[in-house]
Structure formats: C-alpha cells, structure tokens
C-alpha cells in the first residue's frame, strides 16, 4: 500500500503564498556557503533544524569583533574593554527585544539551549524538586529536554512523567492537563518539535500549568528561527534557545527567565563575573544577569548573535515564517505524494520540518544517495529516540527549511528520492 495516500494534506492546490516582495535569491546571496558545490552539484542545504547557515553579516561580525573590539568585558577601565562591554550589553538588549522580555537582566547568555535547560534543572530544579515530586515533559522532547530532568529526578528520587501525543505528533492536551498533579514541580516542553515539526499549543499549556502554580521551562531551539516569540505573551517562566539554529554562531545561546524566579535561584557555576565580592570566608553573588554568567563569556559569539538578530529583523520574521510555511506546504504535497513515502509528523500546526520514511529503504541509505546529489538532509533519530519509538521506526529522513531555501530545492529533493527508487528498484 502506498502510505502517501493516507497522509492528510491540508492544501491540495499549492499556490505560492509568499508576497512578491520576498526575494529569496537576494537572501541567498548573503550566505556564502550556499555557493558550495557538493559532488559536482549545487549544495541543497535542508538540514537547518540541525544548524542553519550563516549570513555574511554574522561572519563579518565575528571578524570585526576580533579585529577591532576584543577585550574582556565588565573588567577593564581601558578603551577596548569599555567598547566590548557596551557591545555585549547592547546585544543583550537586542535579544530582550527579540523575544519581548520585560528586562534585559532576564536574558542570560549560555553556550546554547542544552546548557540553558541544564542551568534551570540544576538551580531551580534542585531547590524545588524533592523526593516523590514529579517533573512533566512531553513525548516529543529532544534528548536535551529529557536527560537534564532525568538526572535531576534520579538525584532527588523524583519521577519523570511524560505527556503523550497522537499519531499525527500532536500533544494530547487533555492528557497533559491530567498529568499536572499536586506533586508536579516543573513542566518542561518544546515549543516546536525538532523531529516532527509540531508547534505545541504553548500558551494554553502554560496557562494550564500556571492554574496549578507550576512553572514552565520552554525549549525554544526550533521555534525562535521560525516564528515570532513573545515570552511575556506566552507567560513562559523560562525560555531557552540557541544562536546557531537562527543564523548565528555556534557556542552561544540564551536563557530567558522571569526576574523574580532568577533572583531567587542559586547560581549555576561559580567563577569570575558572577560575584560582587569574594573572601575566603564568604562570596556575595553578583546581580542579574551576571550571577548566571560565570567566567569570560563567548563575546564574539554574542556579537554574532546580535548580527543574526539584525539579519532576521531585516528580512522580517513574519516574512520568513510565511516563506517557510509555503515551502513546507509545497514539500508536504510533492514529497508526500511520492510512492512509498510516509510522512512522520502530520500535525495541523507545523513549522519547517518534513520528516519521512520510505518503504523498504533505510533512512541512512537515502541520506547517502541524496548526498551524492548535493542534498544535505538529516537521517537518524534526531536526538529524539523516544519519538522514533513512539512511531515504531528506527530513524527518519528529515528535511528542514530556512529563509534561503527555495521550491526548486524541494524539487531537487523529489528528484533525489526518485533516484533512491532507481537505485533500490
């Protein structure tokens, strides 16, 4: 049976949804790596959920930082240190505005989403989760939003509970609500699923948790590149994301936390910058956000992240979202209707991710054949092994889109899948 027939396709007629002002070719010019040839073919980069490519402005920001601004921040009275400190704090303000936080001091720079979630688990979590308590996550989490909580639960004798999803990859909201119990001390959920593309009804989920006085930690790694995030509008207590998935450099990420929560939390790591005074008898911790930023931070990374946000703002997140939605709808139609293709993750609300399997051909073989055509996709479990188990598959092929992708690249993917059929015929 062709599994494709069973796949619900929302829009059978695939008309371009994007307004004429969105000039994807103009955007592509900003990304030097897109001129790469792979095995004699133009690179078709569809692995954006793993990491996005970087525009020239971000690359330039890194170079500019080291060429003209490098000095340690919050320390020196000299000229360069002041310039570097100012640029660093300007970037923090830009991140605040980007996710609409109330205060710049609620923006903590981390190495990425993973570190941000670990920070919350090891500080807020260790204070508030005790023996017999529960931490609630969902069935579609990335390993980085499972393992830190598992470690915490193991240490404290607490229990990790998992809210289930349906066969489309949508969270079962009623089940989620039922699992919010008197012992639930933290809820940790992804905004957008990395393996399935599902956009969770986050605002509703947060409201349900708050009705029972439970704070919510959001893994926003896959959301921030694709949709406008408003942490106050969502009423998120913590919101974590990474720079490298939103056109920024690797090694830099953000934890947003509500000020009152952050102030009450113990520090995560000890060291320089997170203190206001140190004696061998006692250390007074620095105020927010520095309390959570021990050691010399990734200052170049922060400069790159600022450039990435400027780049996204320059295009307009709404336009990026509309363009990616167009690509997703188109890809769902043309890939989903190929013989033997079964889409994994068919939620009504999705962003940027097309995960699929092919009858009789393992994703790893598909990945190798597509690579020979210059097409970069992710094959594997996408750091979400429980999701794979839920769907009874070892792995999927995942194509994920960014602002610079085109319908022509989706067509190249279709040709690549036909090539797979040829090889395995």
């Amino acid at each position: 049976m062709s599994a494709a027939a069973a796949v619900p396709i929302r829009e059978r007629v695939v008309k371009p949804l994007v307004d004429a002002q969105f000039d994807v070719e103009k955007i592509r010019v900003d990304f030097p790596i897109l001129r790469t040839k792979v095995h004699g073919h133009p690179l078709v980069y569809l692995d954006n959920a793993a990491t996005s490519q970087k525009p020239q402005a971000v690359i330039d920001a890194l170079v500019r930082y080291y060429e003209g601004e490098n000095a340690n921040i919050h320390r020196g009275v000299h000229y360069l240190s002041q310039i570097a400190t100012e640029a660093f704090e300007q970037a923090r303000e830009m991140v605040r505005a980007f996710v609409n936080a109330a205060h710049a001091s609620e923006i903590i720079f981390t190495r990425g989403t993973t570190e941000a979630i670990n920070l919350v688990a090891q500080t807020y979590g260790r204070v508030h989760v005790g023996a017999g308590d529960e931490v609630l996550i969902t069935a579609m989490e990335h390993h980085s939003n499972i393992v830190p909580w598992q470690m915490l639960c193991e240490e404290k004798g607490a229990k990790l509970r998992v809210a289930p999803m349906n066969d489309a990859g949508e969270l079962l909201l009623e089940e989620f609500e039922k699992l919010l119990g008197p012992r639930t001390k933290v809820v940790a959920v992804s905004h957008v699923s990395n393996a399935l593309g599902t956009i969770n009804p986050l605002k509703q989920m947060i409201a349900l948790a708050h009705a029972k006085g439970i704070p919510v930690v959001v893994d926003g790694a896959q959301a921030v590149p694709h949709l406008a995030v408003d942490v106050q509008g969502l009423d998120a207590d913590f919101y974590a994301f990474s720079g490298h998935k939103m056109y920024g450099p690797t090694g830099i990420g953000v934890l947003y936390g509500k000020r009152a929560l952050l102030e009450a939390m113990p520090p995560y790591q000890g060291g320089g910058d997170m203190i206001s005074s140190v004696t061998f008898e006692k250390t007074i911790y620095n105020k927010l956000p520095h309390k959570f930023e021990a050691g010399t931070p990734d200052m170049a990374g922060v400069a790159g992240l600022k450039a990435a946000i400027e780049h996204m703002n320059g295009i307009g997140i709404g336009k990026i979202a509309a363009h990616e939605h167009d690509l997703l709808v188109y890809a769902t139609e043309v890939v989903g209707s190929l013989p033997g293709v079964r889409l994994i993750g068919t939620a009504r609300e999705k962003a940027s991710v097309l995960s699929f399997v092919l009858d009789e051909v393992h994703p790893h073989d598909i990945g190798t054949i597509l690579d020979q055509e210059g097409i970069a996709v992710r094959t594997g479990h996408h750091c979400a092994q429980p999701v794979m188990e839920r769907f009874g598959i070892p792995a999927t092929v995942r194509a994920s889109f960014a602002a610079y992708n085109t319908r022509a690249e989706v067509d190249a993917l279709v040709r690549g899948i036909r090539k797979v059929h040829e090889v395995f015929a």
Partner: protein
Amino acid sequence: MPELRDLYQEVILEHSKAPRNYKALAGANYKAEGYNPLCGDRFTVYLEMDGDKIREIGFQGAGCAISKASASMMTQSVKGKTKAEAEHIFHRFHELVTGRSHEHEAELGKLAVFSGVSEFPVRVKCATLAWHTLEAALEGKQEKVSTE
C-alpha cells in the same frame, strides 16, 4: 568522485532484500547484540559453536542496506570456519572497507563487493556492525556492542 553504484552493488542490494541465515538459532551457545546509535541499526548474531568451529550462524535485526547485506554475507563467509579464521576474515574485511588495504581483496571472495564502502567513510560503521557483533559473540561477551 565516489560512485553510488560502487557502494550499492547488485549483490549488496540483493542480500539486503533477501538476507541469508536470517534466523534466531534455538541451539545457539553464543550470541551478542550490536547497536549503532548513529542510525539505530541493531543486530543479534547467534552462534552454534562446535569447539572452536562455527557450526551454525544466524542473525536478526534491522538496519540499512549496507549493514544488512554485510551481516548476511558475513554469515555465509564464516560458517564452518574456526574462531581464528573468522577473526582473520574480519581483519581483512576491515582493511578493505576502511580503504587501508586492497591487496588481500582476492582472499575475501564475494565480500570484495564491499570495497566501495571505503569511498563513503561514514558508512564504514554500517558495514562492520555485524562483524563487531560476531567478534563479541565469539569472545562470549554478554554486553551489547556499540559502534560508537
């Protein structure tokens, strides 16, 4: 440039679709499980050893075409061999797929169809998973082997 046909040779595709000795052995006195966390490939190798000799071999599991075909052809090539002989074949096979040496290709017989794997370094683990599992079974190791 590496050619896809060098990797996906007819013999390999045929074995991946219809693997030989694809069964659990009721009388197995040694078995081991192998796992490649990168792609989720998972195989169990069953051995009926007669002293030092592999009297019967079977495998079961799930994986990509390369790993499945490699497992299938491995069972054919080591059946009736001694432990030392099987280990020697693995050694030669490993040299071949990692591209370290093609000089003993003739010694490998049918297994030489895997020579194209050396052009695809990320697929070496696929080609060797069943062999690592066999090695573990021969050693009588109980724990799961991983290619990572």
